[in-house]
């Protein structure tokens, strides 16, 4: 056993296995288990998984080694040979650390947050199952395993969004997430099939080898496959046009929003593209589409986020917007920067969600569970006196999100904008402009949120403010740790312009991009990442950094001064009631996208379904097939049952006659 525990092949299997075991225990026995033990099982399993993951990461992966688990034969049909094997290379190892690390903190946080819920065990079972599925997605060594996790996280997302399923909007939101994700999954599958058709394998290693061997790649097919995969990424990572489910997904418990809908699951699309970067570099058109979609999403989601009243909705749109930033980086071929932003975003966005959960939790004591007022920013104010820790940590998170210099978001977002700036062509310009506008929005709504929630005068029910209190320690600790990570994560990759060469993050991931970058450099593509920074480039980087710093700080202060004082708030209200009324309503109604989808897609499908329901279901299937076959059996059995009289003698007669006939047959044969 001890020998086994020293083998990385085995330890890697344990990483996703631990949450699975936790899920099984809580899922089967949770109902009968005490609250404390149910939470202990869930937290213990994921923390254990984190410890194993850390030991693997520190000892092997950070040294540049790749860990592979034992391989199991999963299915073998014809040319399709799928092995069940986990793979932790720098990229998946990093994500494994994020999933288990942030997952552990959120599990611990949930112990306090969900303490009052009677389906406590169910929550933890789902949460553990999610961690298992997410780890499968990240660690699987083939697209099939990734798809397994992909669907698994979708299922958990559905289950957790509709966690309080007795309230219909919640279960509707869950269904919406599931259906929209199905659209994306369909694209993902098509992309998978195309890749299999082209390469005859779905294993990353074999795909990479196949890509190396191909002399003249069929760029049409690769573009098509990548675009199909991107449809899947759009669904999972909430990009235009499939982003509509994510804001609704806020119906789930806040820890779920933090873990699934901010830190991990929604980044699956980014991970997938980064993972397959060696294929994507051959699909320039698809990358352009990715960049444009990302930029548009970042901008539009950012603008919608400006006017949301619900604290979680603000964060949800900011998540969509930040995911857009990551796709910008991917589309520009700067994969490590996208992963870097994913990394920092996981911390500060989880932190912001958990902080908002802390606020909601303390207000729900008085307002009652599920009361929308507990999430309404305009019914908060001045909470910094009541909840100092929550305020301080959320402030760090907001600075990170807004991109205030020296906070983590600054480094990663600035790197993305710089990549667009450096591109120096039409695409780069468009993307840069949209990205900068989105950054403005980001800074604005981040500090609007801080100002509204923590400063100014309390605008809600007096009793709620009186009873508002700092959350328990089990919630405070994760906030504190995440705040440290949210501040410090950015320093793992300092920009070249700082003059200090400190880039452990980029160095770690470098082998992942090797093959793709080698191709790009050979082809002298503009997508290739710069290897050396010229003097001019450094100057441009400084310019870019100054611009975005000034924008972030200026807009932040501007938003803060408006929303932290009652007078500014009054002025803003007058403005939206007067001159700015039309655009305000447009944003408040999210550009009427849901309504447009309803008219353009949902209604026609419903009409078509009704027609098919009558023709096929009612007439063909129900009347002809179902009732018809029943009628046939009924009629024939009415005749046939007369044979079965139940009188023994009749059976005997039949038996003897049969035997006699057999005798006659034998005699005739003689």
């Amino acid at each position, binding site marked *: 056993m001890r020998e086994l525990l020293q083998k990385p092949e085995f330890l890697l299997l344990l990483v996703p296995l631990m949450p699975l075991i936790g899920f099984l225990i809580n899922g089967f026995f949770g109902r009968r288990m005490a609250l404390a033990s149910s939470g202990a099982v869930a937290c213990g399993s994921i923390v254990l998984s984190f410890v194993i993951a850390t030991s693997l990461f520190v000892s092997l992966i950070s040294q540049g080694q790749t860990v592979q688990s034992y391989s199991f034969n999963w299915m073998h049909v014809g040319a399709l040979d799928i092995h069940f094997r986990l793979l932790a290379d720098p990229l998946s190892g990093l994500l494994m650390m994020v999933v288990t690390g942030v997952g552990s903190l959120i599990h611990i946080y949930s112990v306090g947050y969900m303490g009052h819920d009677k389906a406590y065990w169910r929550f933890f079972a789902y949460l553990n199952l999610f961690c298992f599925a997410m780890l499968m997605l990240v660690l699987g060594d083939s697209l099939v395993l990734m798809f397994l996790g992909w669907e698994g996280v979708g299922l958990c997302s559905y289950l957790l969004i509709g966690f309080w399923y007795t309230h219909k909007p919640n279960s509707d939101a869950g269904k919406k997430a599931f259906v929209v994700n199905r659209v994306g999954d369909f694209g993902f599958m098509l992309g998978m099939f195309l890749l299999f058709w082209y390469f005859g394998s779905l294993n990353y290693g074999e795909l990479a080898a196949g890509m190396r061997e191909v002399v003249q790649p069929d760029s049409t097919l690769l573009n098509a496959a990548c675009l199909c995969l991107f449809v899947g990424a759009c669904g999972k990572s909430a990009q235009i046009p499939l982003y509509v489910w994510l804001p609704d997904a806020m119906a789930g418990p806040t820890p779920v929003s933090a873990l699934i809908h901010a830190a991990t699951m929604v980044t699956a699309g980014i991970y997938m593209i980064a993972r397959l970067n060696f294929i994507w570099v051959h699909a320039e058109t698809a990358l352009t589409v990715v960049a444009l979609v990302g930029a548009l999403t970042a901008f539009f989601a950012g603008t919608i986020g400006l006017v949301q009243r619900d604290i979680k909705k603000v964060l949800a749109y900011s998540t969509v917007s930040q995911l857009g930033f990551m796709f910008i980086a991917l589309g520009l071929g700067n994969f490590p920067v996208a992963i870097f932003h994913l990394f920092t975003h996981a911390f500060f966005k989880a932190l912001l969600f958990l902080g908002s959960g802390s606020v909601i939790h303390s207000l729900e004591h008085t307002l009652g569970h599920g009361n929308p007022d507990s999430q309404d920013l305009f019914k908060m104010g001045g909470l910094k006196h009541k909840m100092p820790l929550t305020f301080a940590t959320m402030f760090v998170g907001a600075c990170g999100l807004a991109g205030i210099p020296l906070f983590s978001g600054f480094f990663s977002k600035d790197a993305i904008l710089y990549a667009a700036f450096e591109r120096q062509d039409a695409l780069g310009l468009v993307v840069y402009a949209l990205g900068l506008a989105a950054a403005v929005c980001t800074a604005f709504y981040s500090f609007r949120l801080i100002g509204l929630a923590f400063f100014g005068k309390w605008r809600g029910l007096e009793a709620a403010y009186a009873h508002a209190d700092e959350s328990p320690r089990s919630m405070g600790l994760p906030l504190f740790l995440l705040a440290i990570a949210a501040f410090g994560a950015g320093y793992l990759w300092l920009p070249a312009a700082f003059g200090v060469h400190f880039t452990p993050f980029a160095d770690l991931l470098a082998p992942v991009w090797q093959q793709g970058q080698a191709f790009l450099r050979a082809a002298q593509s503009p997508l290739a990442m710069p290897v050396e920074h010229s003097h001019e480039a450094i100057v441009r980087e400084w310019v870019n950094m100054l611009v975005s710093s000034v924008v972030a700080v200026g807009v932040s202060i501007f938003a803060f001064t408006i929303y932290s004082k009652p007078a500014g708030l009054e002025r803003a209200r007058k403005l939206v009631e007067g001159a700015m009324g039309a655009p305000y309503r447009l944003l408040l109604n999210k550009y009427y996208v849901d309504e447009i989808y309803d008219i353009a897609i949902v209604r026609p499908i419903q009409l078509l379904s009704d027609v098919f329901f009558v023709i096929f279901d009612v007439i063909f299937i129900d009347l002809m097939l179902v009732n018809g076959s029943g009628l046939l059996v009924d009629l024939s059995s009415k005749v046939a049952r007369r044979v079965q009289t139940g009188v023994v003698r009749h059976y005997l*007669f039949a038996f*003897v006659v049969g035997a*006699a006939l057999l*005798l006659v047959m*034998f*005699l005739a044969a003689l």
Partner: protein
Amino acid sequence: MEVFFLLSSMVAVAGAVLVVTQRVAIYALLGLLVSFFGTAGIFYALDATFVAVSQILVYAGALAVLFLFVLMFASDDPPEAGPLVTVGARKDFDPAAVKPVEARARPRLSMPSFGAALLSLAVLALMYFAIYKLPPRFGEFGGVAPQTQVHKTNPRPGEPLTEMVEFGSARGVGYAIFDDFPLAFEVVSLLIFAAILGAVLLTRRSAAQSRAEQEAAAREGEAGAEGAGGSHA
């Protein structure tokens, strides 16, 4: 031997006819017994002495007695059918509650019996035809040597490999059973074991069943007592 065979076969056929025609069950059983004895005689006439003895032991001894028990226990013949059949009938058995068996009211050759006779005769004709068509070599039995040599399959060390046995003797059949067909023998023992278990299971009363019967009896007793009380008042 021919005479003995003829006598035995006449007895067997007479007994069989008695079995299928007698209306009183106990007489039918007597006919069956007679037929068994006749069959034993036929076996003896065919030089199968051991089988003849087994026939008497198993059929006439064990089976007939078993039939007799069940007849006494489970006969639905009404009392007027004869004194013998109702001997030992259950105490709570109420002849009036038994539905009259329609066959009894019918003439002897009612439709099903007529059909049965017709079908049996048809089968008989077929069989006779088949036997009549047998090749001529089945026209005689041929003589049997007084003793024949058998080769033992598993002789004990030091014993001779062959032995002289008489046809139809216990020794001869024993060699057939234990030397040539041991597996069939074991399987039959298993079958009988299963049959014993099955019979026990089928006839055993479950605890719930007997309790229900007791309760029903108790209720009837109470009702009777009340009725008596009422008449007194």
